[in-house]
C-alpha cells in the first residue's frame, strides 16, 4: 500500500505485492478466540515478510508470510506471551524479521539520532538566542551613550 514515488521501485514493489494476487490474512487462518486473533494481528504487523519488499506478514500474500502467520498463531494458542512469540521467530529467522529493530548497541545510532538531534538542536537554539541577546544589550559604546544622553536631555 505504498504510494509510489518512483515508478521503477513502484513497479518492482507492486510486482512483488501482486505476485500472489490474493489477500493477506485468509479466513481459514483466523483464530476462533477474538482476543488471541487481535494479538496475532498486532504481532503480525511487527514482523517482516522476508521475501517481500518492506511488507509485514500481515499484509503479504507470499507463502512464507502465510507460514509465519500460522506459526505466530500456533505459538499464541500454545500459550506463549507476545514477547516469547517474537523471541521464537527471531531465533529462527534472525533480527531481519523485526520491522522495529531492537534497542541494541548496533542500533544505537538509529534510535539515538532523533532524540539527540531534538535536544542538541534545542540547546543550540537556546544558547544562540542567549548569546545574541547579551551582545545586543551591550551594543552602545560610551560615545554613543553620551550622544544619546545629549539628545535625551536637549530640552
Amino acid at each position: 500500500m505504498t504510494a509510489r514515488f518512483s515508478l521503477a521501485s513502484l513497479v518492482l514493489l507492486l510486482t512483488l505485492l501482486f505476485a500472489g494476487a490474493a489477500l493477506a490474512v485468509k479466513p481459514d487462518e483466523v483464530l476462533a478466540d477474538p482476543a488471541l486473533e487481535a494479538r496475532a494481528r498486532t504481532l503480525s504487523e511487527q514482523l517482516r515478510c522476508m521475501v517481500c519488499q518492506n511488507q509485514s506478514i500481515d499484509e503479504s500474500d507470499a507463502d512464507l508470510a502465510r507460514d509465519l502467520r500460522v506459526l505466530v498463531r500456533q505459538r499464541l494458542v500454545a500459550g506463549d506471551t507476545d514477547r516469547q512469540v517474537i523471541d521464537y521467530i527471531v531465533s529462527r529467522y534472525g533480527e531481519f524479521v523485526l520491522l522495529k529493530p531492537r534497542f541494541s548497541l548496533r542500533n544505537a545510532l538509529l534510535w539515538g539520532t532523533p532524540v539527540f538531534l531534538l535536544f542538541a538542536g534545542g540547546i543550540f537554539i537556546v544558547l544562540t538566542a542567549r548569546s545574541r541577546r547579551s551582545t545586543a544589550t551591550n551594543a552602545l559604546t560610551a560615545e554613543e551613550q553620551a550622544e544619546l544622553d545629549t539628545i535625551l536631555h536637549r530640552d
Partner: protein
Amino acid sequence: MVETGHFALVLAFALSLVQTLVPMFGAHMNNQKMMAVGGPVAVTGFTLTALSFAALAIAYATSDFSVANVWDNSHSLQPLIYKITGTWGNHEGSMLLWVLILTFFGALVAAFGRNLPAALRANVLAVQGAIGATFFLFILATSNPFARLNPAPIEGRDLNPILQDLGLAIHPPLLYLGYVGFSICFSFSVAALIEGRIDASWARWVRPWTLVAWMFLTGGIAMGSYWAYYELGWGGFWFWDPVENASFMPWLGGTALLHSAIVMEKRSALKIWTLLLAILTFSLSLLGTFLVRSGVLTSVHAFATDPTRGVFILCILTLFIGGSLALFALRASRLTAGGLFHPISREGALVLNNLFLTTATATVLIGTLYPLAVEAVSADKISVGAPFFNLTFGPLMVPLLVVVPFGPLLAWKRGDIFAVAQRLMAAFAAALLAVLVTALFIDGASVFAALGVGLAFWLICGALTDIAVKSGFGTVAPGVMLRRFAGLPRSVFGTALAHLGLGLTTLGIVGTLCFGTEKILSMHAGETVQLSGHMLRFEGLYPAQGPNYSEDRGRFALLGADGSTTAVITSAKRSYPVRQMTTTESGIKTIGFSQLYLSLGDEGTDGSVVVRLWWKPLVTLIWGGGLVMMAGAAMSLMDRRLRVGAPSRRRKSAGAVPSASLL
C-alpha cells in the same frame, strides 16, 4: 521523429553546458553580455527538451515498437490515455520528464526574473544549467529512451498493469513538479553563496518558488497515497516504504523551508539557516532520486551487480550536495546575522517548527538509510519499517501540532503568550469537547483515539480562530469585521487554510486508524454481511472483458434499512495476458467522508470467494486535507506582495529600496 527527439536531447545537453559556463563567467567578470546569455539559452533548452519529450510521447501514442522503450512498456491494445502516460511509466521516460520539468523551471526564471539583479539571475540560471547538464548526460549515457530495435517487433510487452490507471497520469508529474521545483530554491541559495550576499529580497524571490514546489509536492504525495489506497487492495494509505520516504523527506524539509523563509523575508533573521534548508531540501530530492533510480533499495548487493546508473547518480549527488555544502561552509560566515527576537514571538514559534520538522526529516532519513548502512558494513541485515516510524515520527509530530495554532497569532519580535492563549480558549474548548464526546460516546477504550480527535479539532478550530481574530471577530461591529475579513492579506488565508488542511488530514488518519473496522470471510452468492451498521449482499461473480484484460467482477449490493438495494459496489480481479499478471480492483463506496472498501480474494472450490471488507471512517479527509493545504499554498501565492510586478510598481512610485522587486 524519434531521431529528432534524440538529437534535440543532445542539443539541449550542449545548451545546458553553455547555460552553466557563460553566465557564471559573465557574473564573475561583471560582463553584462555574457550574463544576458543565460535567459534565452534556458528558454531554448526547455523548448528542445519539450520537443524531445513530445517525440517520445508521439512514439508511445502511435505504438512505434521500433523504439525499445516503447516496445518494453506499451501495447497496441492499451487505451490511448495509458499509451500516453506510459511515456513516463518507466525509468528512461520518467528521467526525461524530470529534466523537462527542470528546464521548465529554468525557463520560468528566465521569463519572470527580469527584475532580478543581473548577477543573481545569471548565477541562478548557471546552477540550474549545471543540474540539467548532469542529468542530460545521465540520460544520454545510461538511460537513452530513444534506442531503436531492428527488426521492429510486431507487438509490445504492455505497460505494467498496476500503472494502467489514471493515477499515473497525475501522480508523477505533480510529484516531479514538487521535487524539481526545489531545484530553484537550491540554485538561488548557491547563487547567493557565490555572490556572498543575501538579504530579505532574496527571501522574497525564493518564497514563491518554495510555495509552488511545496504545493505540487503536497498534491503529488496525497495523490500517490490515494492511488496506492485504491489500487493495492488492502486499504492502507501510508506504508513508510523507502520509496514513499524518498518523497516525504523533501516535503518535510520543504515545509521547514517554507516557514523559515517567512522569518527571513519579514524579519531578516535565520538567513544562514534558510539557505542551508534550501540546499538540504533539494539534496533530499536528489537523494530520493538516487534511492529510487539506482536499485539500492532492493539490496545493497543488487546495486553492486549493476552499478552503472547508481554510480552515475551517486556522482551527481556527491557533486551537488558535497559542492553546495562545501560552498556553504566556506561562505556562510560572510553572511551577516539578522534581526533579533524574543523566544516568545512569531519567529520563536517558527524556530520551534523548524526544530521539530528537521528532526522529523532526519528521523525518516536515518530510518530509510540505516538498513542500507548496516548491510554495507556488516553481513547482517536489519529491517526498519512502519513500527519504527510510528514510534519515532509520531511523538515528534504531536508537540509540533499542539503549538501550530499559537504560531500565526503570536506577534513578531515579542509576543504575549497569555493573550494568545486567551484568544485560543474557544478552540481549546472545542477540542476538549471533541475529546469528551469521543471518549464517552464513540470509543471509551482508546485514550489515543480521544486525544487524536481532540488534536485534530484543536488544529481545525485554531486555524479558524486565526482568521476570526484577524478579522476582529467579537471586538468590532459586524460590518467592520466583514470589511476587515475581505481586506486580510491572501497569505493570512493561505496560512489558515494550510493549517486547516493539516487538521483535516489528522482527523482522517485518527478516524481511519482508531475507528475503522474490518472483516475477512468467505462468501457465496446471495449471502449478506454486516459491518459497522452497513449491510452488504454478495450478488455473485460475473466475467467481463476489457480492451487488454479480462476480469471477474464481484457485485455487492449495499442494502438500505428496508432491505432494498441502495447502491452497487463492484470489485474485480483482473488478468492481463501479456504480462501474465493479475490485479485487484477494489470496490469503494463513499458515504459522507467515510468509505466502505472491499476487495476480492481467492475463489474456493465450493464456489465461494474470499472477501475482505473495511469500514474506513473519515478516510477521505486524509487526502481532502492535502487538497486544502494545496489551496492554502495557492492562496499565499496570490498574495499581493508575491505577485509578479506588484512590488516593482511600488518601487517606481515610492522610490523605495531597489531590492523590493520579485522573481
